[in-house]
């Protein structure tokens, strides 16, 4: 499998353009555009589509509209897109590397590890600059990922379920440690950390968007480079080794990449659950595609999901804002259950 898909119907092997996948990608991008416009319009100070367009183009009809769009809604919408894309690609990479359809950065404790590191920072050293958060989150997430790998991988191969269960146990431990830390901390710092922990984009500003954008720019080339080993690993460790991939080091590098992707997102918007789980599966339902295109499709799906979750969370129960993380959890968990219910061979294949 090089650049296209092998067509199986007519005898000779031919490479065809993945038309369907590209069409789906274009549709997803259009959907994301619509969602962004909708989230710029909706809120306690409603704007029409025309006003939004004028404001974004720099000809704001009113000062109030300009403030609302540029100070609040646009950074929020962009952060949702970036975070969704990061979580989704992290989940997609994890699912391929661990060959486990249930892998998700928040399900296996990686998000919680990042969360514990950031909450520790918020409570113990509240004056720490914002920009350092992704680094801390990365360190915390990496430590937890390494811990789960060593705990779960001692025994024979095919221990994918043990991997998930170990993750659940480690996540429970870290969640309790985080809560204990919150009880110990000052009340105002604890409240700030608590809002962040629910997984919400409501408080982001342009600094946060810049951090997320920077992370995306840094990690995108790494992701592109990861496509080749991922393509091989998708076929199973034996075939991958046969194709000349050094499986052990490649797995470690890819998991580190997945952890970095999730950690960057967690650092800014908190542990938004289940996006990394649903987005790749949804993307695959929409169009089966080669690894590179699958990653792009997952990223677009994840971005659309988080944007939609944020929009729903702040409009459904207005004026109360439901954090996007809770919306994604309520939507994502039934999908998780459906995945458990699938026949076994499907559940581990991707």
């Amino acid at each position, binding site marked *: 499998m090089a650049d296209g898909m092998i067509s199986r119907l007519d005898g000779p092997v031919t490479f065809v353009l993945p038309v369907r996948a590209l069409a789906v990608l274009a549709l997803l991008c259009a959907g994301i555009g619509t969602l962004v416009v909708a989230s710029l319009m909706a809120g306690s100070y409603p704007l029409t589509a025309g006003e939004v367009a004028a404001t974004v183009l720099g000809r704001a009809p009113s000062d109030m509209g300009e403030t609302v769009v540029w100070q609040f809604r646009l950074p929020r919408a962009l952060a949702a897109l970036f975070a969704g894309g990061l979580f989704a690609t992290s989940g997609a990479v994890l699912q391929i590397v661990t060959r486990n359809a249930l892998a998700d950065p928040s399900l296996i404790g990686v998000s919680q590890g990042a969360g514990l590191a950031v909450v520790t920072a918020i409570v113990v050293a509240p004056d720490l600059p914002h920009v350092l958060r992704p680094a801390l989150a990365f360190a915390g997430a990496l430590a937890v990922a390494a811990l789960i790998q060593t705990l779960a991988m001692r025994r024979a191969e095919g221990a994918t379920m043990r991997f998930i269960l170990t993750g*659940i146990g480690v996540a429970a431990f870290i969640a309790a440690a985080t809560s204990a830390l919150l009880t110990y901390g000052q009340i105002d710092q604890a409240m700030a950390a608590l809002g962040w922990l629910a997984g919400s984009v409501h408080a982001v500003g342009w600094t946060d968007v810049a951090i997320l954008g920077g992370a995306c720019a840094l990690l995108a080339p790494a992701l592109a480079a990861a496509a080749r080993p991922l393509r091989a690993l998708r076929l199973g460790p034996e075939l991958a080794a046969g194709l000349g991939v050094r499986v052990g080091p490649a797995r470690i590098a890819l998991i580190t990449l997945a952890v970095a992707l999730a950690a960057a997102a967690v650092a800014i918007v908190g542990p938004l659950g289940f996006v990394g789980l649903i987005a790749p599966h949804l993307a695959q339902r929409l169009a089966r595609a080669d690894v590179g295109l699958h990653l792009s499709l997952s990223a677009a799906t994840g971005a659309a999901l988080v944007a939609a979750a944020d929009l729903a969370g702040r409009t459904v129960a207005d004026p109360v804002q439901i*954090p996007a993380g809770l919306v994604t959890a309520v939507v994502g968990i039934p999908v998780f259950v459906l995945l458990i219910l699938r026949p076994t061979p499907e559940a581990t294949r991707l």
Partner: protein
Amino acid sequence: MTGAALPRHGRAASVAPAAGLALLVLAFLWHISVGAKTIPLPVVARAILAYDPEIFDHLVVIDLRVPRAVSAVLVGAALSVAGALMQGVTRNPLAEPGLLGLLIGASFAVVLVVGVLDLAAPGLIPLVAAAGALAAAAVVWGIALAAPGGPAPLTLVLSGAAVSAFLGALVTIASLLDEETFDQLRVWMTGSLAGPDRAVTLWALPWLLGGLVVALGLARQMTALAMGDEVAAGLGLNVGRLKALALAAVVALTAASVAMAGPLGFVGLVVPHGVRLFAGQDYRLVLPWSAIAGAAYLLVVDVAARLVLAPVEISTGLVTALLGAPIFVWLVKRRL
């Protein structure tokens, strides 16, 4: 197998219960003596045996500390026995009220009724908790049953985790929509023995004692059931009825402990596995020992919850999770 094991256990059984009960009493007194003001053990003993309302320390002991210690004893025993029963019936080393979603189901039902419908009659709470626990158990078991491979330990825990996460998210959403009501429930939701409501405790007591009596009455049959449905049926047991009774006991015990202390995770996992290390696999020993050890365990955990970050007190449920989660991971590694 049992023939060779019984005499040894028989000798141990004559001394060990006395030693176990003595340790439990000691833990009970220690739990009472520790606090914002340390009260020496002799004073604690005198307050209980010869209560004098004129002495301030006696008032503190009887009015504040004894109720909390009693709750710890009852809840610890209830959750541990419930966990042991669940492990026997499902033949799943990871079965436990918390991991299989019963605790969060009961809590969710209570939150729904108290927080959203605004009904707070103390007599109603154990009933509502029981309904929630039963519904959650049914959903978790149903998902695991429908999954390929049937209700294996892995699928049971996964579906328990999914149901717990889902209900947890719903509780958080409900608490965001109505912050005032839920402020009172927030501490309870993390599992806390602080300030048990007397009325609720009294209403939960019959559920708890009934559950314990049924559980201990089932002990003989449970040993057979743990060897397999066929073995149990071959020994002339009515397996369906036995499982239904065990489920009823588990639900009653879970409901009572949630009504008294909120969801305390992993107690039902840690204690029975610890007990099996010395009491073997015979449920006639495992169940009573789980009750005693569970009571002592929760007393010690609650002392830790009050001491570790003193003067701040952390929720007891957090400590049970901090201690229990590593044991869960160890069990996953060893037993699966």
